[in-house]
């Protein structure tokens, strides 16, 4: 998009710096790909006969089916919740639209396992509600465990992906297209079907993709809800059969690729009307007498996703219950979380810098390739990445196995896209004429970068780092697989407490995680200039 201006091609003195940038980017890209390479090698080294035997076991087939059903059901539920909410908050005169928008987007940053923990600790056996109802003669509640509970919880924390993308699409929808359809003999419903739906489809597909990828990679929720899927089985197999774990990981990657393919087909050829300008004249659908009924929908969703977990956790905090002894929260766990997250944020930002800079300049296919590779971490589930790093360390440098450096490395690979995305955006927002002006004023190219570009992108770098920091604090599967023995963080403690029904002890770390989530939405909103109006 940028025009090539005076001096864009005159950079011979910057050559060594450019080569350095490319080398650094290549190194990062290689580091991102290396674990996956080892995983594939590991899987291929399994003798074919035993591979077939492992993969055709009825339990393995069951896991595949479970995962498939879970992904399809949750994604469908996300669309059913996310799209109407987006429509209500963008296209109607719903009262307090801004407040609802923020409230309903909030679950986006809450890790679903925290929600799952809250639901299990409230509705499961030995849960709050169970305790409460037992004196009344209620022996058992309908089980929260299994497919239905998992779909419920995952939907509550992943529909915002669809909500946010559908909102963006609805906001760029030129409402004159709807007017046009109506003057061409289409009533509101028909106009919605023939004009709005085609406009929404790519965005909803993109949001659905994010939901599906999240569901596939999530370990905590299905584990807490006792539903066997790829992630949970890979996690438990990692302790007794690396062969099975690696084969399942490959299978999971295959399913991920399949999801990506389905999404790109659904999206179809994009012909969005965004270029024709946005909505006109605050043209909104008047809800009429439904105007005061409609808020019940976002209210119900927000209550289930936000109020119930917070309420349950606060209750546990006040009244710890009679959990098993020996499981008690220690503030050093929080300190452990913070220290690895700081390391991950710093390293990810540094590693993302050369890639983001080259990508923002869009100067070569190689730069694009590096950027693409840096995004691999997004698509690779944490449990697969953890397993791949177990392979890598045990087969090359056993001394690194289950050490902090390898754990931090996993975080960097996983959350590099956040750093690259944020940094790239801030490089793009710097007018290329500014460093050029510095050059004409006698600075070297590196001097111009340091004195002009870097100060301008600093807020973006910080925003990216903050995002990596906060998401690292919430990361569960890789942490469980790669942490040094005895190294306990907020999430691993939550995991252990859940296993031991020590719900009261887990209230503090769970609430801390919620607070971290709330902090990260502030960063997300600020960094992306997300317009909630």
């Amino acid at each position, binding site marked *: 998009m940028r025009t090539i201006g005076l001096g864009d091609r005159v950079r011979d003195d910057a050559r060594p710096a450019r080569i350095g940038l490319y080398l650094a980017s290549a190194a990062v890209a290689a580091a991102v790909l290396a674990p996956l390479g080892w995983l594939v090698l590991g899987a291929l080294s399994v003798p074919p006969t035993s591979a077939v035997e492992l993969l055709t076991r009825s339990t393995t087939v069951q896991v595949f089916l479970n995962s498939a059903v879970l992904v399809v059901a949750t994604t469908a539920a996300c669309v059913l919740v996310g799209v109407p909410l987006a429509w209500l908050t963008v296209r109607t005169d719903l009262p307090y639209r801004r407040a609802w928008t923020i409230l309903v987007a909030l679950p986006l940053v809450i890790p679903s396992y925290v929600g799952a923990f809250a639901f299990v600790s409230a509705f499961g056996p030995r849960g709050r509600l169970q305790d409460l109802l037992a004196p009344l003669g209620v022996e058992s509640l309908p089980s929260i465990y299994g497919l239905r509970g998992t779909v419920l919880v995952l939907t509550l924390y992943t529909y915002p992906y669809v909500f946010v993308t559908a909102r963006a699409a609805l906001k760029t929808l030129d409402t004159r297209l709807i007017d046009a359809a109506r003057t*061409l003999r289409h009533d509101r419903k028909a106009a919605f079907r023939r004009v709005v739906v085609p406009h929404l489809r790519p965005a909803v597909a993109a949001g659905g993709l994010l939901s599906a990828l999240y569901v596939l990679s999530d370990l905590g929720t299905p584990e807490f809800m006792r539903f066997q899927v790829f992630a949970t089985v890979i996690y438990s197999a990692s302790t007794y059969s690396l062969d099975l774990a690696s084969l399942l990981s490959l299978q999971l990657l295959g399913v991920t690729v399949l999801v990506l393919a389905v999404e790109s087909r659904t999206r179809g050829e994009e012909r969005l*009307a965004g270029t*024709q300008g946005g909505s006109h004249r605050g043209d909104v659908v008047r809800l009429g007498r439904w105007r005061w009924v409609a808020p019940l929908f976002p209210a119900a969703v927000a209550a289930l996703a936000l109020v119930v977990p917070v309420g349950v956790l606060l209750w546990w905090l006040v009244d710890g219950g009679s959990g098993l002894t020996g499981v008690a929260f220690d503030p050093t766990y929080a300190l452990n979380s913070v220290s690895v997250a700081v390391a991950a944020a710093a390293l990810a930002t540094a590693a993302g810098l050369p890639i983001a800079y080259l990508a923002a300049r869009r100067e070569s296919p190689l730069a694009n390739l590096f950027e693409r590779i840096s995004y691999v971490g997004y698509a690779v589930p944490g449990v697969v990445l953890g397993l791949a790093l177990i392979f890598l360390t045990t087969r090359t440098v056993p001394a690194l196995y289950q050490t902090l450096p390898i754990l931090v490395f996993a975080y960097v690979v996983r959350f590099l896209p956040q750093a690259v995305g944020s940094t790239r955006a801030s490089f793009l927002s710097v007018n290329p004429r500014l460093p050029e002006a510095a050059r004409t004023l006698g600075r070297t190219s590196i001097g111009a970068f340091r004195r002009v570009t870097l100060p301008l992108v600093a807020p973006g770098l910080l925003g990216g780092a903050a995002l990596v920091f906060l998401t690292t604090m919430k990361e569960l599967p890789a942490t469980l697989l790669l942490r040094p023995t005895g190294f306990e963080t907020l999430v691993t403690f939550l995991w252990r407490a859940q296993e031991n029904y020590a719900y009261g002890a887990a209230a503090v770390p769970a609430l801390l995680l919620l607070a971290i989530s709330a902090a990260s939405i502030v960063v997300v909103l600020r960094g992306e200039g997300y317009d909630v109006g």
Partner: protein
Amino acid sequence: MSDSDVDAAGSHATGDRRAASPAPDETILELERVSKRFGSESAVDDLSLSVREGEILTLLGPSGCGKTTTLRLVAGLERPDGGEIRLEGESVAGQGRYTAPETRDVGVVFQEFALFPHLTAEENVGFGLQDWSAADREARVDDLFDLVGLEAQRDAYPDELSGGQQQRVALARSLAPEPSILLLDEPFSNLDVDLRVEMREEVRRILKDAGVTAISVTHDQEEALSLSDRVAVMHEGAIEQVGPPERVFQEPESRFVAGFLGHASFLSGYVSDDVVHTAVGEVPVDLINGLSSEYEATRIDVLVRPDDVAARPVGRADGHSTGTDADGEVIYRQYLGPTVLYRVELREGDVVECMHNHTEQLPVGAPVDVEVTADHELAWFPKSAEE
């Protein structure tokens, strides 16, 4: 303007086109005392208008005068707060009734066209024909592509079409369901200036060929005057004057209309003995449109447009004149290529604009005499009307 195709279609240019309109007196659309407010702001205020079968009527006015709102009220995209709208004798809005746009039988060509970006040109044109049989639909779509002359682009998507082509598709799409009236919202505002003139003639040809009644909305007076059979000048939510273009231009009924249609200057004068005494000399009463005897011995303002008056240099030959006996002096000049626009401040304080081509150039500050050269009657307003 002398495109022979257009003339062959029996549609353009001079006065005879008005006579060619079929059944000129049959009213197809009637707005009666229609009002529309947005919050506390009144967009359309007590507006009445009737549109005759087969004519092209243009609502002309500055932005914010309520013309687009009027169009949206007719289309059913807005509901009036008061008054009534009748289409083909049936009430479609007002008095508690409201017919939705999809059942109103009104076609709209939107500003920037609002073509569906995910559909081809052909699918766009066929969009409003979903209730037709496949064969009828195909035949109708064929006819329309033929009418707008765009057969080669049927499978193109809107973003692959030029501005003029998009407009043809938009026109064809809105004409496809055979609406009883077609509304055009600033139809040329999205086109380059060169293309605008060309498309004005083309759109007029298409509308006349289709025989459709049309209301267009614009703030461009040249467009309004050249496209329409009648022009309605709007000001602050109401119609100031309706009539054929020549009439509205030459006999404006209000100072607003006079000022909005091209440059307007006012020469104040005193009526006495069959002449109007003005700062630039005497203008015969015969040249003043419909000035009746009751205005004898009163002051009036005569409307002069830049081509009605000419500025002549004073005392150039002997070099002696100080200009004290000149009518006024040039205070502004704008070189426009073929012509020059001069603004002359008269000794009595009036300012008039003159536009003409002169081999010699009058510099700013030059003393000039101003002469009324109009070969048609001039409009006028009683002096008191302004105060």
